[in-house]
């Protein structure tokens, strides 16, 4: 069935899959957000244990989604994989180190004789929560603001700064840096907001939830502010367009705004997403008793839609999704960075497994989540983190 699609259609299909994985990842980073709240919401050892364990049953899913995102990007847009990972070396290394130390922390933090002590593992969790959200957000922002690289005629890429991507977050002489960081911070506060909603759904403890509710505005408001700065910033600025025939890349004023208008479906997905995120927060804040358990679903689905819309805005409608500000013509598009048609077809068959995967994850979690986590359970479970 995929054989009948054109090369271009397959490239669009795969960009949508990458976008979907990316948006799932941003949603699932509520785990990271939660890791930065353990000591804010948990004032005693047991309370912290409850929080850690609530997150500890989901962290692997976030992690796996990140890995799969990497694999899918490699398989479908290898030139992007090569350029971004090899170029923004230090950004990715920091993200990876943050995930390396996370992976052991849940399992080791409360085990006897764990060498570094529980506090250290909790610090690892915090560091992961901070770096992963801010840096991944920054990395996504560069889809709109561009990086400095050059692709030679043999399609080998060369990063043109010695800072390995750190300039994207720390070169304060360049206006785009502020946009990049805005999205980074927006993701950070969004992750914390979603974490609070997740705890409301998953934890059964009035003291903790009371605190969580109080902390909601302090995270939701900065999220909205930073998100608006970013969105308004890119909608008003020039974007990286290319000519579908000559493939020449050029700067188009209001490109991303045009994308939203010219692709109404994408525009609607994006707006619907934003509204859902805000609506979930609003319900949890003002109608806590009725809605607090459902809010994570509303805001979570909203997050997925919003980020999905953002990705499509960056890659569809003849837009260069990984632009180079060093050499405009080196910018990557879904047409020049993708795998061969054969590989995209083969991988498309594999993608049919995705709904099946989602189904069993859903089923497994439903059978596990019948009851919420309580302090009592923590004291009895011999495998609790």
């Amino acid at each position, binding site marked *: 069935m995929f054989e009948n699609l054109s090369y271009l259609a397959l490239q669009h299909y795969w960009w949508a899959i990458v976008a979907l994985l990316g948006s799932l990842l941003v949603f699932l980073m509520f785990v990271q957000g939660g890791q930065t709240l353990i000591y804010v919401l948990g004032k005693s050892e047991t309370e912290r244990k409850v929080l850690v364990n609530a997150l500890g*049953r989901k962290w692997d899913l976030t992690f796996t989604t990140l890995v799969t995102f990497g694999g899918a990007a490699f398989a479908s847009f290898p030139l992007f*994989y090569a350029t971004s990972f*090899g170029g923004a070396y230090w950004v990715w290394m920091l993200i990876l180190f943050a995930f390396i130390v996370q992976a052991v922390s849940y399992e080791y933090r409360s085990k006897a004789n764990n060498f570094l002590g529980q506090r250290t593992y909790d610090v690892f969790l915090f560091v992961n929560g901070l770096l992963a959200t801010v840096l991944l957000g920054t990395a996504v922002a560069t889809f709109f603001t561009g990086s400095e690289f050059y692709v030679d005629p043999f399609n080998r890429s060369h990063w043109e700064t010695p800072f390995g991507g750190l300039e994207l977050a720390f070169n304060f002489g360049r206006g785009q840096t502020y946009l990049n960081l805005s999205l980074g911070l927006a993701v950070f506060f969004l992750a914390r907001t979603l974490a609070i909603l997740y705890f409301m759904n998953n934890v059964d403890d009035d003291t903790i939830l009371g605190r969580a509710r109080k902390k909601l505005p302090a995270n939701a408001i900065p999220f909205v502010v930073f998100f608006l700065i970013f969105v308004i910033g890119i909608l008003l600025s020039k974007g990286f367009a290319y000519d579908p025939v000559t493939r020449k890349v050029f700067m188009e004023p209001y490109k991303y705004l045009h994308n939203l208008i010219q692709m109404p479906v994408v525009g609607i997905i994006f707006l619907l997403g934003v509204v859902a995120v805000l609506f979930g927060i609003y319900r949890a804040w003002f109608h806590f008793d009725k809605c607090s358990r459902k809010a994570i679903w509303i805001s979570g689905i909203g997050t997925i839609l919003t980020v999905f819309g953002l990705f499509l805005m960056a890659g569809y409608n003849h837009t260069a999704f990984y632009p180079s500000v060093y050499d405009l013509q080196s910018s990557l598009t879904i047409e020049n960075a993708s*795998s*061969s048609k054969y590989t995209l077809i083969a991988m498309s068959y594999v993608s049919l497994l995705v709904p099946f995967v989602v189904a069993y994850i859903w089923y497994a979690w439903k059978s*596990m989540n019948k009851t919420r986590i309580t302090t009592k359970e923590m004291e009895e479970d011999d*495998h609790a983190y």
Partner: protein
Amino acid sequence: MNGVDIALVDWSRAQFALTAMYHWIFVPLTLGLSFIIAIMETIYVKTGDEEWKKITKFWMTLFGINFAIGVATGIILEFEFGTNWSNYSWFVGDIFGAPLAIEGIMAFFLESTFIAIMFFGWNKVSKKFHLASSWLVAIGSNLSALWILVANGWMQNPVGMVFNPETARNEMLDFWALLFSPTAINKFLHVISSGYVLAAVFVVGVSSWFLLKKRKIQFAQRSILVAAVFGLISSIYLILTGDESARQIYKVQPMKFASMEGLYEGEQNAPLVAIGIMKKAPTPENPKADEFAFKIEIPNFLSYMAALDPNAFVPGINDMINGNEQWGIMSYYDKIEKGKVAIGALRDFKEAKDKGNKTKADAALKDFKENYAYFGYGYYDDPHDLIPNVPITFYSFHIMVILGMHFMILFIVVLVFLYKDRLKNMRWLQYVALWTIPLVYLAQQAGWVVAELGRQPWVVQDLMPTLSAVSNIDKSSVIITFWLFALTFTVLLIAEIKIMLTQIVKESKNEGGQ
């Protein structure tokens, strides 16, 4: 050589080796222990005997501790192809990316979803569902091994693809050729069975320590029974698949094959060096130097291993460097020539195409296609740069094989004395079992050293050497990350070992078992 900084290549290789070897400390135990646990839990569900549940849970605790650090060390490998080998990622990403993505979609989600049920679901889901989850974890982890080994197998024996000069990369032609390449299949079977053997040795060894301490005798003996049976079957399989791997190498990587045996001058009826100590390698000035200070040989056996024929000719390193007309072997000097033609033709093709000169482009393309099979050789001037480190390859191979025999014999002996009910009093055998644990880890690392050092300098056999695969980044960045990885992984390893030992001691003193 294109102005590539060799120190950058070496540091990038060192970093990959470091991270991969660390990762490989933990993976084989995951591969094997997951099945051993699933078997133990099956016995529990079938018999309803609570002691089996305790046994299952204990090994599951150790599994969890090991799994966490396996995940931690694994994530970097998924991204390192991009961060440190970005030219590789473009050159073959069209083929190599697919198995990695499939691994994520098919295997990692399966593993991570059901592992949560395995650990936290004892009181939340039914016995049957829990058991199914344990099996799914085992299947998931082994599936992930399949895909990454398909990827590795393809690098050793690139099949199912064609080079596209327009995009300057290799593109996939046949997915099934990739998946069912004999190199990939053998690798997969050899590697998973090596994991089973490692886990079996681990369980037998730890349980023997219980016996040495005279604690929880029944608990230990039951664990040993399951593990030793599983280990014996796996070790036979391991030897068979290893043998088959050797035959594949003889066909597709003869240089590796010669290095594994330290064979410089090829011969018919080649003997196998069973045990040997290497001396000086022959040099161009002194080609007849004897490379062994000491050796014990099995006559004809190398020829037999290579081609199931004692008369088969096994080419030596010098035959490949200098060529051997009698046996139709092209010299590396000629291959280098052809490789240079291919590289030049690709450049001419690009230039001619940009200038719109079709005749010239077509001619260049023809030259290119005729010589592409030797593309990677063109990066070199001296064939001697194309020889892997022979002593390391030789010793690693022999250590692996000798230890393989040792494991098989150990399982047999342990089972015999367990059956006669004498194992619990045989302290020497308990000590041997315990001290075999480090040896099985050694054999694992040795295996990868053979596979990876033995194929140097190739990332993709004959097509791409490491020096053209590396990312164009600053050497100092790689040096810093190398040391960061060394430090982080070492600290985590120490933590893991301490936690594990503590859990083992705790369990041995745990009241209630027998």
